[in-house]
């Protein structure tokens, strides 16, 4: 492990072998624990840090941060604002000159925030290389840009999975959970025709979220939408049109409810819990929501991979460090960031463990899935080895998502995909429109 400070220097003259070994052991221990101690040693900052988060379990956020402060670290003023509209609110605050030491951010905004001087690169901060090395290889591109700069730490991570109602499938005579697009379509038709469920398939198809589904389904077909330079290459693959055809068919044939264009995920989870839907593709942790709702079908909802190839989209929102001039303050904020986005001073995934307990959220670290506390934190209904394997080899983060022009593209995808679903555009036109949206976003100013 790379460390910053060693524990003070001592002369070696006059030491016997035993004393030397003792000193060596202490040094080794100090080296192992250095990231932890380093934080406290550097946290000489005596003021208050400012942290901004969105409103997912605000009391938990405050408890976790208080836990960090209780270890002799500075007090943290945690401000919480709603998730909906978080990005505009955050940008407005930063534009207005608000100095926030640590904040949640959407991954697709991270490079833009660096470029605008709103967030600091993490390069060279004590322990940051170890944090990156600790991650799944598949996750690193979400936090390290093409130039090798480290731009963020994980707030949480997840993989898109298929949630399905096992009882309904059995009732319909379907032996195994469908995986490919055709299998899901066929199974949905059977469920609808047999009147087991009116609209079997639900997806979080609101405008803001269409971009995530774009990657989920394209990856599922083996297509990475953008190359590393950000060129939209999805148009080069005929399977892209096939994915859009499938989306349009599912919506137009009533296999998905018309309301999915405006439904929030809470409502979709409830539809699964109550038996008003049989399939739901979204982040793995939505299984917790569905089960905890305690609906008549909650216990019958299972989780499996999307598509036969088990290639899916790995997402995760991030923590970014503000541009802080004061070195002591920056070090203190970085220490908080390590605690919140990696491990605590004892090398435990304290924060991630809490999120796993609270909502089934994951972290992009292999060690997270091997930690006995984490394993105990996940309810039995999760197939944790499957999720871990999906992180390791079955998912991608799509590095282009952190490019500075990406938020502009992200904002345009919803209109294009809704036009497709509503039958106002053909799959071919959708491919063209999305390509045009990506190109115009890269060019700069465009509506």
């Amino acid at each position, binding site marked *: 492990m790379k460390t910053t400070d060693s524990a003070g220097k001592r002369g070696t003259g006059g030491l016997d072998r035993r004393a030397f070994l003792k000193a060596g052991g202490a040094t080794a221990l100090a080296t192992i624990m250095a990231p932890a101690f380093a934080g406290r040693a550097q946290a000489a900052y005596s003021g208050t840090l400012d942290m901004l988060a969105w409103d997912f379990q605000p009391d938990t956020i405050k408890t976790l941060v208080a836990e960090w402060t209780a270890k002799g670290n500075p007090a943290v003023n945690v401000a919480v604002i709603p998730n909906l509209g978080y*990005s*505009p*609110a955050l*940008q*407005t605050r*930063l*534009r*207005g000159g608000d100095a926030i030491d640590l904040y949640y951010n959407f991954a697709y905004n991270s490079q*833009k925030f660096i470029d*605008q*001087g*709103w967030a600091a690169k993490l390069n060279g901060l004590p322990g940051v290389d170890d944090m990156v090395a600790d991650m799944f290889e598949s996750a690193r591109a979400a936090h390290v840009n093409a130039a090798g700069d480290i731009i963020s730490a994980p707030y949480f991570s997840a993989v898109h999975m298929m949630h399905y109602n096992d009882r309904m499938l059995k009732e319909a005579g379907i032996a195994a959970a469908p995986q490919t697009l055709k299998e899901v379509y066929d199974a949905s038709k059977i469920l609808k025709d047999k009147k087991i469920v009116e609209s079997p398939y639900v997806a979080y198809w*609101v*405008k*803001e979220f269409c971009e995530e589904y774009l990657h989920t389904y394209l990856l599922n077909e083996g297509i990475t939408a953008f190359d590393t330079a950000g060129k939209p290459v999805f148009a080069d693959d005929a399977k892209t049109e096939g994915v859009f055809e499938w989306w349009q068919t599912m919506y137009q044939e009533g296999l998905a*409810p*018309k*309301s*999915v*264009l*405006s439904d929030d995920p809470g*409502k979709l989870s409830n539809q699964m819990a109550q038996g*008003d839907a049989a399939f739901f593709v979204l982040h793995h942790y939505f299984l917790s929501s569905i089960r905890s709702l305690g609906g008549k079908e909650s216990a019958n909802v299972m989780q499996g991979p999307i598509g036969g190839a088990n290639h899916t989209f790995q997402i995760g929102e991030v923590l970014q460090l503000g541009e802080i001039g004061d070195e002591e303050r920056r070090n203190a904020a970085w220490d908080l960031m390590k605690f919140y986005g990696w491990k605590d001073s004892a090398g435990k995934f304290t924060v991630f463990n809490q999120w796993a307990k609270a909502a089934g959220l994951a972290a992009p670290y292999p060690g997270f899935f091997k930690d006995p506390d984490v394993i105990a934190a996940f309810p039995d209904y999760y197939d944790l080895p499957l999720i871990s394997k999906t992180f390791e080899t079955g998912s991608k983060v799509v590095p282009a998502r952190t490019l500075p022009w990406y*938020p*502009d593209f992200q*904002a345009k995808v*919803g*209109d294009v995909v*809704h*036009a497709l*679903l*509503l039958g*106002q555009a053909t799959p071919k036109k959708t491919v063209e429109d999305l390509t045009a949206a990506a190109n115009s976003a890269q060019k*700069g*100013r*465009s*509506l």
Partner: protein
Amino acid sequence: MFGLKLTAPAGILLAALLLVPTVLTVLYSVHDVPANGRSLGPFVGLENYTIVLSSNVFWRSAWVTSLFSIGFVIFSTLIGLAMAILLNQRFVGRGLARAMLIIPWATPWLVIGILWKWYADGSVGGLNAILLKLGIISDYHDFLSDPNSALALTVVAAVWRQASFAGILLLAGLQTLPDDLNEAASLDGANLWQRFTNITIPWLRPALITVTVLNIIYAFLQFDVIFAMTQGGPGDATQVLSILIYRQLFGVTQIGLGSALAVILGVIALVGGLLTVKILYRAERTHG
């Protein structure tokens, strides 16, 4: 000089709240302003306006804004007028009914949007239950996910609030109408419709002009209700110009483009308001 001193605080306040933001917006609209706002960025002349005016997204949004505005202005004015006439009659509970007229108007636009989003929900909303009971629909329908009905429903929600505001203003106007005018007309044989068109409407014309101009301005600047109900969707079915501006300024932080859009919307609202005043005042002068 003394008068100038007395009005100076108000003048300074107005300049700070209106003039400075207006000048800044115009200034931003001719620059490629960086998202962080630390500088104006390079001067680009009218390039932002060219980009906006040559974009299909803008024209589609302008069309949606026009449809919304027409529906909003007509219905909120007419329903407001009907409510004012009704509440000007003598009936038991009139005081309570007049007090209730204030409730929608006292509710913030955003809350109205949230309320109507739930009310129109395709699975559990009350609107579906009522329409089903009345036999107007045969099955629950998700109005906000349907591009054919989403805009209409946002108009209904916005009108629900604004009509009460129009009603309050028009009721105040009606209360100044002397009873003997209507009584004299009745004695001369004028029927209800003739009294309405020849006495009530001319009497209310100044109040109607005020209400209509305010409704036009509210219509063009409407944001909260639509954003809360649909966020501009499905697709771009309800993406009025104010939502497009929000997206540009605060979502993707294209400050220059967003400012150019804001200037264009400001000009449209100003021209719309001025034209209405001119047309309605000319009609007033013609009718004497």
